């Protein structure tokens, strides 16, 4: 296995990259002086992958929540479960499913190679039976019930259902109690064989570890993967939103809101680093604590400390989102739109642009302290086709023109929706 070494000129951090003969791309980020090691094995498979051709070229549509269900079930192998094996090494293990990815991870301070062996082994050895699939339904059913009682999550998905008419990002990652009732061992195997191909995955290990140690374990445990081709269904998503406002009543003390501005993105398109950073900088200029709008909204009592925004994006979808608690979400929506229009007319304060760039640069440097953050960051970089940590250079060299382009060309003020969850009147 050939390793390519890269050193970050701004910080001196080192990244090793190599493709294992079995097909798995591997990154290693040794961090001198750290006692912990963190490893994350991720497949490019998430809740949005609902219709696809399987490894056996069979076209199927799967029940909502199956990627998450598969994540739960993968921990159970034929002879014992992965948690029992990790208990022997003292590692702390977990997994999560997102819209586009499913990740399996652990951190440990001892017996690193054994823990890495467990990770690579259990993810390659699924064991689904009618009995163990049935047993998990009770646990995941309670996880879904917990989510259904979460007003924040409900508000978010209520918004996505208005913003997106066809794209599966509109469906809750965990599915519903009814949808998971349709999941069978056969369907889980179909999904597993399709997406858990090492060519469709990436391993990132950071902290107290060397590339040689990782390679040694990979050689012992990884099995060659067949060639990978995947036909994901492209979703035709209309440019418009399906509704502009929706309210739900729940036991909450004051209204929660999610407000989204939908961007038009070609099917499967992933934003460039420059586009991502420009959108994030625009958000800081618009609603950061240094913005005039933030101070005004606080003074008018329309927001509190829960207010924030983010750039929500993935393959074939993106939107500018705002969320928090507000006694009057409609007035807040009007104020945000008015400020966006003002910025379009009057332009961007160049001094503030430079200050926000400085701040974002500092936040990226700070992020390098944390080995878990580093590994997750490199995982994203890999799936987006970026060089590891190249966002640091992107922000350091970004011109204000990129933010103008976002504001004038990408942001559509009219394609928006407001989701509200409030208490009984």
């Amino acid at each position: 296995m050939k390793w390519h070494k890269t050193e970050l000129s701004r910080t001196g951090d080192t990244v090793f990259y190599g493709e294992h003969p079995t097909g798995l791309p591997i990154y290693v980020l040794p961090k001198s002086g750290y006692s912990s090691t963190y490893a994350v094995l991720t497949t490019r498979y998430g809740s949005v992958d609902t219709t696809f051709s399987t490894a056996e070229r069979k076209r199927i549509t799967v029940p909502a929540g199956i990627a998450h269900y598969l994540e739960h079930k993968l921990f159970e192998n034929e002879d014992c479960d992965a948690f029992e094996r990790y208990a022997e090494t003292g590692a702390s293990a977990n997994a999560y499913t997102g819209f586009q990815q499913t990740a399996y991870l652990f951190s440990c301070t001892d017996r690193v190679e054994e823990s890495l062996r467990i990770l690579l082994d259990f993810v390659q050895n699924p064991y689904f039976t009618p009995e163990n699939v049935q047993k998990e339904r009770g646990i995941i059913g309670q996880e879904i019930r917990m989510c259904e009682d979460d007003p924040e999550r409900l508000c978010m998905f209520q918004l996505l259902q208005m913003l997106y008419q066809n794209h599966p990002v509109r469906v809750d990652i965990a599915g519903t109690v009814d949808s998971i009732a349709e999941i069978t061992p056969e369907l889980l195997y179909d999904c597993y064989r399709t997406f858990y191909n090492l060519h469709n995955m990436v391993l990132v290990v950071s902290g107290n570890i060397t590339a040689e140690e990782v390679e040694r374990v990979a050689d012992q445990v990884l099995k060659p993967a067949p060639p990978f081709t995947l036909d994901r269904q492209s979703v035709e998503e209309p440019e418009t939103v399906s509704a502009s406002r929706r309210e739900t009543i729940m036991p909450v003390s004051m209204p929660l809101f999610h407000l989204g501005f939908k961007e038009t993105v070609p099917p499967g398109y992933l934003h460039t680093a420059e586009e991502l950073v420009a959108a994030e900088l625009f958000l800081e200029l618009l609603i950061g604590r240094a913005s005039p709008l933030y101070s005004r909204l606080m003074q008018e009592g329309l927001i509190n400390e829960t207010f924030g925004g983010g750039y929500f994006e993935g393959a074939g979808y993106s939107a500018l989102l705002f969320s928090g608690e507000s006694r009057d979400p409609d007035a807040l929506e009007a104020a945000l739109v008015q400020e966006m229009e003002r910025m379009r007319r009057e332009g961007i304060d160049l001094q503030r642009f430079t200050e926000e760039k400085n701040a974002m640069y500092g936040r990226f440097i700070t992020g390098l302290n944390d080995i878990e953050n580093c590994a997750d960051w490199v995982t994203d970089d890999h799936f987006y086709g970026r060089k590891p940590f190249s966002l640091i250079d992107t922000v350091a060299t970004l011109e204000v023109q990129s933010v103008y382009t976002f504001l004038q060309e990408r942001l559509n003020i009219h394609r928006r929706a407001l989701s509200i969850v409030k208490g009984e009147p």
Partner: protein
Amino acid sequence: MVIRTEKLGDGVDFLSIRDSRFKTARLKAAIFLPLAEKTAAKYAILPDLLTRCCALYPDMMQFTRHLNRLYGATVAGGVSRHGEHQLLSLSVSCIDNRFCLNFEDVVEEAARLLLSMLFCPHLDEAGLFAADDFEQEKRCLCERIAAEMNEKRVYARRQSDKLLANGSPYGIPVTGTAEAAAALTREAATAAWKEMLKTAKFQFVYMANDDGERVSRLIEDAFAGQKRMVDFGKTDPTFVPLSVPRRKTEQMPLKQAKLVMGFRLKAHEPDEKAVATGRMLTALFGGGPQSLLFRHVREEMSLCYYCHAVFDRHNGVLTVDSGVDPADTARAEAAILHQLDRICRGDFSQDSFDSSRRSLIHHIRDYENLQSSSIGWYVVQSLTPRFLSPAEAIDRLEAVTREDVCRLAQTVTLTSVYTLLPEGGDTE
């Protein structure tokens, strides 16, 4: 890693951790005050008021722009419970000078800023917190208190704490009550700030790639003009004995029931051996995937997605919380008590015991890999007679035996059972 402690004044202590691994410097002021019903809200508003601006940068916009110029330095304020104390915290974090693009000294400037926030807040001509700042932060505090009900797991835990406290300070909300927050005045908040500077115990913890000497001198100078009369109350928890567990059930329009069980146990700070045993007991009982609650209540019985135990070592309290189907609350309660009973009888495998210890040791070692958790490690020991290093804490854990855990489990008393049910179910 080099650790240095220094006494900078009456009730003012400084601890610096020199560590070159990190790309940032961080300074935290941990401020300890007795937790009391009549003062909780007055103190709780202070971290918000002090971290939004200061006399030098007298509005949020100017203040934040200054932080942005310091390469996105961040300030944070918080309030939490620490035994029977209210712990206010102010912290600042910034990139290390070696990463500045134009060779600025942001580390010293960030430390100065934290002291400005603490000693020179934005006051009006009458010497009171400025009206706009105060009204906004008071509204935010009131909204935060009211919003506790939005997160049902947090809400249920709070209700359980009140039930368990049975009148002791453990039940006092650290933010104060909704009524006390609504009644706050600028005069009261300003007086509370002055009282805090005079009477609170201050523990500063600094972690960076230097020896902390410059920062400790800045802090010493800042306190030089202060007349201090430290009074930070008692450190032993108050126990109000109960003959039977207190029970309470509430209903809300929900899908899932929340079950929270509160236990008292004879283990609390500053008894190092008892605390280590309490940690082992909690890890074995419900502290993670290796625990009995996870293995049996979640995995074998499929009763819940989470069933977790946490140990409050300052109060000698162990809490188990779970989200279950409404029809299963009695089964879940019985299953949780059954697992505790197994520990009392020593009915657990050596593997479970060893893996619980390994899990705890990993978590303690892992503390040292983040600045915030390293600093937190020492902050929570500010009121104990001495600082225990992570290595010493691991030694204490290594010394805990199965018999120690069984003996401690036998002292565990179920004190409260709080259940939050979907509307339409039976309540007691």
